[in-house]
C-alpha cells in the first residue's frame, strides 16, 4: 500500500494504492487519525481508485477515521471504490455510513 497526500485549501486528498491489509492498515489508521485529530482538515477525502483489496482491518481503519471525523465535526469522504472494495463495504453493511462518491469532482463539490 502507498499513501500520497494532496493538500488543498479546505481538504486533504489521500491517494491510496495497492492492497490494504493487516500488514499496513495500522499505517493507514495512523495517517488518517493524525490528519483528523491534529491537522483538523475540514474535509478528508480518500481516493481509493487504486485500491485492489481491503480486508477487515482496513475497513476497521476507515471506520475509525469516520468516527474521528464525526467527533471533530469534519467530513470523511471516499471515492473511486473498486468492485472489490465496494464488495467488502457492502458485505459489512458499512457502505451506508460513509459518504461515497464516484470521482474526485463529486467528492470536492
Amino acid at each position: 500500500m502507498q499513501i500520497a497526500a494532496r493538500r488543498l485549501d479546505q481538504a486533504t486528498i489521500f491517494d491510496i494504492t495497492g492492497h490494504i491489509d493487516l500488514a499496513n492498515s495500522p499505517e493507514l489508521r495512523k495517517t488518517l487519525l493524525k490528519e483528523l485529530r491534529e491537522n483538523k482538515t475540514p474535509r478528508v477525502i480518500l481516493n481509493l481508485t487504486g485500491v485492489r483489496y481491503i480486508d477487515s482491518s482496513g475497513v476497521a481503519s476507515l471506520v475509525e477515521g469516520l468516527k474521528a471525523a464525526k467527533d471533530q465535526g469534519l467530513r470523511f469522504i471516499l471515492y473511486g471504490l473498486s468492485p472489490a472494495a465496494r464488495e467488502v463495504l457492502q458485505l459489512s453493511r458499512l457502505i451506508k455510513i460513509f459518504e461515497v462518491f464516484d470521482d474526485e469532482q463529486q467528492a470536492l463539490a
Partner: protein
Amino acid sequence: MQKPGLLLDVVLVSDPHLLSVVRAAVERLTELSGFSPPECRSITRAVDEAVANVIRHAYGGQPNKRINLSCRRISCTVKGQHREGLEIQLLDNGLPFDRKKLTARSLDEVKPGGLGLHFMRDSMDVMEHRRVGRQNQLRLVKYIDVNAAGQDSQGE
C-alpha cells in the same frame, strides 16, 4: 501419506506481509478450480481473514511462527446431491480459539473490528474449528456452484 485431491500444501510464517502471497496463491487456485470471479474473490477474502486471525489472535502478532495452509479438491454428497468443491485447512500451534470470539458481531453495530469472522462465514459453505492437542485446526469448504461458474457479476 498425501491427502487425496491435494492441490497446495505450504508452510508460511506468521508475518502479515505474507498475506498478499497467500491471497495471490489462493485466488489463482480458485480460478483454476472453476469458481466464478465473485466466488474467487470471496474465498480469497475468507482465507486471508483466517490467516490474519491466526497471526493476530493465535500467535499474538509474533511474526515467526508456523502456519500450515493446504488446499484440496473434494468430492462428496451433501443433502443427497453430489458436490465438488475446495477444502482449505489451516493449522497453527498458537493459543486456543476463544469460543466467545467465534460469534461474529452484529452488523448493526458501527464499530471497528469483528468483521473477519463475518466475512469468512459469508464466503464459505463450511467453517469448522477444532483444537487437537496443541494445534488449532480450521477447515473451510466451498462447493462449486455449477450454475454460477464462469459468470462474473462485477464485469471484471
